[in-house]
């Protein structure tokens, strides 16, 4: 096929470009010195520092909480949106709805952040409680809803509608059909959507920073502040922990969501090359 060795080298080069910076972070997390880019002896002192860092632990816990809440809300709102996108057909405003649902995915984050700050600080909307954890949760839910809607909508489109219609014809109420038939069929997309939303929320800096008040420092907000205050190998140690945790999670998720059915569905004879 095209390229041969050249193509293979290109692929390897791109993978190197993607992974060398991450490997460097990991290597220098084991330094005994204070410099983040030199190995002055090996030690685990920066992991010990990580374990004692109370401020960081609080930020991690807050990020996990906001991430879980935002992902859950995004799955609920995003799934409802996907049902409307796929099943409601053309109605007045359907094109506007499609645009509104996909815009947060491409809209620059500073604009989304600024717009939500204006909402949460608006004098007439004091009832929303101003900036803080709830505001960050709303921002993340809004952003992630768009991603969940796209994922779930593509799964709904592939789904065999005969199952639902059979249940409806047999007199099952629509809401029950949705929870007993539709939800199990689209469950992998719901799980994938939840995980994607959770990571997007855990990773977001711009929205969280614009919408945070002094009591709501998420992990990225804390990391960004520290990157401005001077670099320490402790951040390398943090990065290493995150890379390990994420790699394990992605492997598990891949196994659970895609692994067995895909492997069974692809006959080994179908080899391209």
């Amino acid at each position, binding site marked *: 096929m095209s390229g041969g060795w050249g193509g293979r080298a290109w692929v390897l080069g791109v993978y190197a470009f*993607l992974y060398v910076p991450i490997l460097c972070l990991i290597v220098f997390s084991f330094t005994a010195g204070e410099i983040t880019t030199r190995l002055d002896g090996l030690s685990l002192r920066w992991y010990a520092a990580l374990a004692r860092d109370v401020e960081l632990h609080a930020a991690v816990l807050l990020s996990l909480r906001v991430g879980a809440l935002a992902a859950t809300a995004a799955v609920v709102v995003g799934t409802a949106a996907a049902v409307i996108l796929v099943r409601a057909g053309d109605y007045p405003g359907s094109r506007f709805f499609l645009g509104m649902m996909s815009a947060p995915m491409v809209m620059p984050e500073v604009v989304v952040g600024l717009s939500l700050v204006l909402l949460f*600080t608006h004098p007439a909307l004091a009832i929303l409680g101003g900036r803080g954890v709830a505001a960050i949760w709303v921002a993340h839910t809004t952003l992630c809803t768009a991603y969940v809607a796209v994922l779930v909508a593509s799964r709904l489109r592939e789904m065999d509608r005969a199952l639902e219609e059979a249940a409806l014809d047999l007199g099952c109420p629509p809401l029950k059909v949705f929870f007993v038939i539709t939800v199990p069929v689209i469950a992998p997309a719901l799980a994938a959507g939840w995980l994607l939303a959770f990571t997007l929320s855990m990773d977001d800096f711009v929205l969280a920073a*614009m919408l945070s008040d002094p009591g709501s420092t998420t992990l990225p907000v804390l990391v960004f502040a520290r*990157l401005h205050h001077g670099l320490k190998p402790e951040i390398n140690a943090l*990065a290493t922990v995150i890379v390990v945790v994420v790699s394990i999670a*992605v492997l598990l998720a891949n196994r659970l969501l895609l692994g067995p059915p895909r492997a069974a569905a692809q006959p080994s004879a179908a080899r391209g090359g």
Partner: protein
Amino acid sequence: MRAHPASAQGYGRFWVGLLPWAWMLFFFVLPFALIVNVSLSTPDLAVPPYVSPFAGTTADGAPAFRPDPASYARLGDELAALATPGADRPYLAAYANSVLLAALTTLCCLLLGYPFAYRLARAPEVMRNTLLMLVMLPFWTSFLLRVYAWMGLLDSSETGLINQALLGLGVVAEPLPLLYNTGAVLVGMVYSYLPFMVLPLYANLVKLDLRLLEAARDLGARPATVFLRVTLPLSLRGIVAGSMLVFIPAVGEFVIPDLLGGGSVMTIGRSIWDDFGPNQDWPMAAAVAVVMVVMLIAPIVLLHRHGRRAGRGA
């Protein structure tokens, strides 16, 4: 089409649709209307730091709308000063920098990502999922920490990793100033946005009908001709999708120019951030944001219109 009563389904859809419609109208569309409103406000030392154009009343006490175009006027003044050499045009410079950086990022991602995605799509089927997952894995780890990795690689002192290597090999005698310039920002942007280019390209190229390429070759086309006249036109949709996924967020990017560009690279994202934060000039931040969104959306709408008209004509 269906046996069950359509009206019951209609009611159900209304209630299902209510949640996403209400959520997105209130937390996405309304906030955007507020940006437009604040962009026409007057900055003020208050909380929040602006006076809304709806704040005043007419002589007889009825609510009045008095927009303050000062923020847009500042952008207009900079545009008018284009002819004057040496004039200070911070906002226009930020726009130009951002668009240029985003365009270069898109181009580099495309040049790097296209051959990569092409090879990936032709890899043995059993390996494709793993290869694709390896592209996505860095994307799942912390974005900030990946940018931080480049701060260590590009560091301009002799402890910077690339400088260490170059000094060690004797290629240079003095450490190179690699960090805090446009090049550093570009590398960081390409690194962060590459997966967004690769995924749509891969999704498109994996569906490419190889028989078309064979037919072209059998008819005597040279490899370059096959690529230019068959592969490239067929993958145009993937190129457009990937380019949009990279270009649009890249124009508004704040974190990478801030961390890798230092004080030297001003972009729209940073300008909005500064006016919103330290400068406390929310109307200006809002006006800059409105102009950026219009700038980003206008070509998409035009492209869409054009595409539909072309589709109808065909």
